[in-house]
């Protein structure tokens, strides 16, 4: 029942919030209580999880619509566990960092909780169609969160987001039916992952299906050239939504690729691997190069996400146990670091009214600037560039170390990406924080502005110094996933 609780508690809370009467702080406080509850439940999940086991745990399997092959089958392993925790944590961060005076708070917070439930469902689902359902359900609250509370061009951005991700969903659904319809062996209709694994395909069919899934999840990750929805969505989304979008939602793509691509088509995956590693290089370098010229801080961070998600594809392509471990750590690491950077950009935007690097400068000023936000930005930038002592290094080192023996050249080129990451983030720091202060009378940064960023920074540094804390939970699983 643990997993159902993680999944349905936020949905239940969303209903409660939606039915709350108007009242200024009541809704927000209730949302914070719910976020704390969700985080508590997820942490409690840790006590029930046995890190020495490699397979699914705490499984729940109820027949649902047998005719369609859908069963309510949940389970968790060492790869899903940190992502579920990340989701609960960043949901709490997003709720806390929402400005108290937001319009239509009932709907807003209810949608955030629906989103959290949907995302948790994707990570926990062990049935392909159940996965698909949650994958689609999560899309609606996110679309509305951008479309209603977004910036000036929110209509364009949210619609673009909707079209892209709906397309991703359709491809996913098509792929699922393809697995069942095109397989060579005749098995009873079931979309459970473990049943799908038993299906066999001719090489060309397997390749076709894999391409479908690559496109479906490539949109979500996003991989170049399927990425164009992401910068627009980020620029128009409010800060808490950007935190969730970069922090958790992109991981649905890489997680899906792991479950569907690596998990269901191991042979085809291996055949495609060199191409995929090359695709990863293109994504990484493209994201970095476009980030260098950005003037909008938020866009720069958004393109940096594209680069960093590329490392995950590299690790998945290499498929060694170490690379898969690195992939899992990188999903968490990128989730935290990009969330941190978006939060910091959000604070700067709310205080100075601009994110334009040409108009910002000198924010390090200790009296009238934002010195602490500046220090945290340095930390975030360094973490993102893979400087040791922070989590990004552990993840990137594991991925590179795991991928190098398989794809030396592609790994080398991806490593160039970490150098370029340093370049564009140093440009950001140079423009925004060094030099003379650009504005007077900047409103004071309050502790509630700083707290979420400090919380994330602490975790990023802690896991950078003590990576075993995280590796402990995931290695048993990743060893199995990487052994093909």
């Amino acid at each position, binding site marked *: 029942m643990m997993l159902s609780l993680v999944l349905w508690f936020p949905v239940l809370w969303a209903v409660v919030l939606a039915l709350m009467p108007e009242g200024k702080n009541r809704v927000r406080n209730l949302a914070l209580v719910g976020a704390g509850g969700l985080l508590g439940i997820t942490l409690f999940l840790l006590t029930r999880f046995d890190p020495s086991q490699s397979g699914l745990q705490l499984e729940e399997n109820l027949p649902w619509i047998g005719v*369609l092959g859908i069963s309510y089958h949940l389970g968790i392993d060492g790869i899903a566990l940190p992502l579920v925790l990340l989701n609960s944590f960043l949901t709490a961060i997003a709720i806390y960092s929402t400005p108290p005076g937001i319009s239509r708070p009932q*709907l807003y917070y209810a949608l955030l909780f629906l989103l959290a439930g949907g995302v948790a469902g994707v990570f926990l689902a062990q049935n392909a169609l159940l996965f698909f*359902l949650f994958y689609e*359900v999560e899309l*609606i609250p996110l*679309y*509305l969160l951008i*479309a*209603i509370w977004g910036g000036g061009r929110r*209509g*364009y951005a949210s*619609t*673009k987001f*909707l*079209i892209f991700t709906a397309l991703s969903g*359709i491809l996913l*659904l098509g792929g699922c*039916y393809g697995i069942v319809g095109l397989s060579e062996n005749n098995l009873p209709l079931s979309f459970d992952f473990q049943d799908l694994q038993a299906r066999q395909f001719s090489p060309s069919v397997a390749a076709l299906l894999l391409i479908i899934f690559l496109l479906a999840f490539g949109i979500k990750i996003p991989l170049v*050239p399927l*990425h*164009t929805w992401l910068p627009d969505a980020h620029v128009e989304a409010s800060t808490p939504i950007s935190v969730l979008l970069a922090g958790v939602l992109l991981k649905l793509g890489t997680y899906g690729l792991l479950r569907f691509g690596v998990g269901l088509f191991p042979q085809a995956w291996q055949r495609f691997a060199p191409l995929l590693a090359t695709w990863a290089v293109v994504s990484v370098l*493209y994201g970095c*190069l*476009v*980030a*260098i*010229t950005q003037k909008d801080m938020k866009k720069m961070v958004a393109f940096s996400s594209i680069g960093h998600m590329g490392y995950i594809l590299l690790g998945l392509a290499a498929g060694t*146990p*170490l690379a898969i471990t690195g992939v899992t750590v990188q999903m968490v690491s990128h989730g935290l670091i990009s969330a941190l950077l978006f939060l910091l950009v959000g604070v700067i935007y709310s205080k100075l009214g601009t994110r334009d690097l040409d108009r910002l400068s000198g924010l*390090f000023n*200790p009296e009238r600037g934002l010195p*602490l936000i500046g220090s945290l930005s*340095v930390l975030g930038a*360094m973490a993102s*560039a893979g*400087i*040791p*002592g922070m989590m990004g*290094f*552990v993840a990137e080192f594991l991925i*590179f*170390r795991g991928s*190098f*023996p398989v794809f*030396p050249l592609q790994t080398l080129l991806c*490593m160039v990406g*970490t*150098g370029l990451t*340093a*370049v564009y983030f*140093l440009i950001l720091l*140079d423009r925004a924080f*060094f*030099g*003379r202060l650009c504005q007077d009378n900047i409103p004071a940064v309050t502790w509630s502005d700083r707290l979420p960023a400090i919380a994330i920074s602490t975790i990023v540094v802690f896991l950078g110094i003590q*990576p*075993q804390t995280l*590796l402990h939970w995931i*290695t048993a699983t990743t*060893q199995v996933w990487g052994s093909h």
Partner: protein
Amino acid sequence: MELAYTYAWLIPVLPLVAALILGLGLISFGKFTSQQKKLAALLTLTATGAGIVLSVALLVSQLQGHEPYLWTFEWARAGDFHLTMGIVIDHLTAMMLVVVTTIAFLVQIYSDGYMAHDPGYVRFFAYLSLFSSSMLGLVISPNIVQIYIFWELVGMCSYLLIGFWYDRPAAAHACQKAFVTNRVGDFGLLLGMLGLYWLTGSFEFEAIGEGLQQALENGTIGVGLATLFGILVFMGPAAKSAQFPLHVWLPDAMEGPTPISALIHAATMVAAGVFLVARMFPVFEHLPGAMNTIAWTGAFTAFLGASIAITQNDIKKGLAYSTVSQLGYMMMGMGVGAYGAGLFHLMTHAYFKAMLFLNSGSVIHGMEEVVGHDPAVAQDMRVMGGLRKYMPITAATFLIGTLAICGIPPLAGFWSKDEILDAAFQANPALWLVGWLTAGITAFYMFRMYFMTFEGEFRGTDHHLVEMVKRENGSSKKEGHGHHSHKPHESPWTMTLPLVTLAIPSIFIGLVGTPFGNYFEAFIHAPGEAVEAVTGFKMLPPKELQEFAVMAGSSVGIALVGITIAILTFALKKIDPDKVAKTIEPLYQLSKNKWYFDEIYDFLFVQGSRRLSRQVLEVDARIVDGVVNLTGLITLITGEGLKYFESGRAQFYALVVFIGVLGLVVFTATS
């Protein structure tokens, strides 16, 4: 003594604790903490002082022949992949610990005087402690991954400290340049590390070396590939130790406060590259190609740095190019297999160059009194002169440092530099020739600096000259804020005490490594190399003595030639430097413009990457996104969508989408 080993881990941890206390204090109670200057200094000094005590105890114990100490723990584990971290205390570590802690301690005392009026005093000490911690962590690393980790951390501290005066645009650019250049080197280092792991399955220095030797003997790997990985690893040291072609960041790094230039960019961090080559010696010694690359890179860098230092007018830039040049000597020494000699020069250079930089800081401090807080003027030697009268301690110690770096016996630099040149001669006389010529140039530019700064008439009150220098250096600062005095003054005791203290090793420390009883080499030599124990003063056999006399005589000779020319030019004014510059105009311009490296790199890499990324952006906006928008679908739907939001029926819309999705599922499932 065992106690010292048990508590060795405190050496890097104590400064880290100091940094954390100061950092957390600044975050939580910014105003209050930034006023607690004395407390901050005391805390930092206590941490470093305790480090000195432990380091000296360890050095003594190692000198008495204690076994190397190794303590490791598992840092990260994934299946059969283990990453260990820990502490190794052997001869090399013990020496480095003492060098780093003593210089750090003196620099911290000095900083109290130098930074006294800076509003960022406490922040400075926090960064300083963080750096000390990272540097000490690097020194005690038992494997290359841990070195890499601390390697990056010292790089980050260097970034923070170069950019310490964040409101100076030059500092902002310099820290960016330093970080990016070092990233280029680190990229090679990481790649080389991964490659060597791939070949040998280990991150431990000795194990990589053994594995490599075996694999090379068995023929399972090609020499070419192994050499390639060796050279990639060397990219890291090349960047950190400012070797050609990655030397460009170090002179710019002088934008940081001068104590930083002394500690990080002269004595410790930049020497980390040489240290890593020493640690990786078991690997490099099997790769003659890599060794040659190191030797020639070092030799060329030594010459390059010296040739640029001749024409610099900024006292710190001059010293910076001198550092580049001296690091080149060390690398050349390592490259020709003179392990002990290279590290010997590392140690002697650390002391006298730290002193020279602190001297320059003292000079700048005195000049600021006269010309104002404008680095473009206060650091320019053209407006100095005659400072010996006003700053006798600074002048005397600077002269000691100058003599030491020129290689005048019996000062420290003579013994170490001579040992390197000797080894270079035996390996390849061409290398020796480059090093020998460079020694002459070194003597010339160092005495040029000494004379321009400390002898002759004081020129700082000549407003015409000051304005000219200001214009030439592109300073926009207006003169006349605050009242200046007409005479520079000697620095406070907190600044002169470290100078005098550093003068002692600058004079005497070379005596531990004379050919007549090389205690240094007996203590620090390449792993596996047999060195006989030293029993006291030992007369060399006649043949060796003759050899030594010829080598030493020739290098002292060329140094004296350099000094004589400098005296003729800058003290006696028999030679007019401007006239000489005119006659060799192209060479003069080449040196003055630093061989145009900045311009070339700017064009190739900075502009190049900008052009490339602008083109990629164009592709992104026009083509990739253009195709998406071309379908026109988005604008169409946007219009429709907006209508719903404007009428406030978002909830209804959500319901429609939700039902649509469900319908899609059911439809596709049943059909």
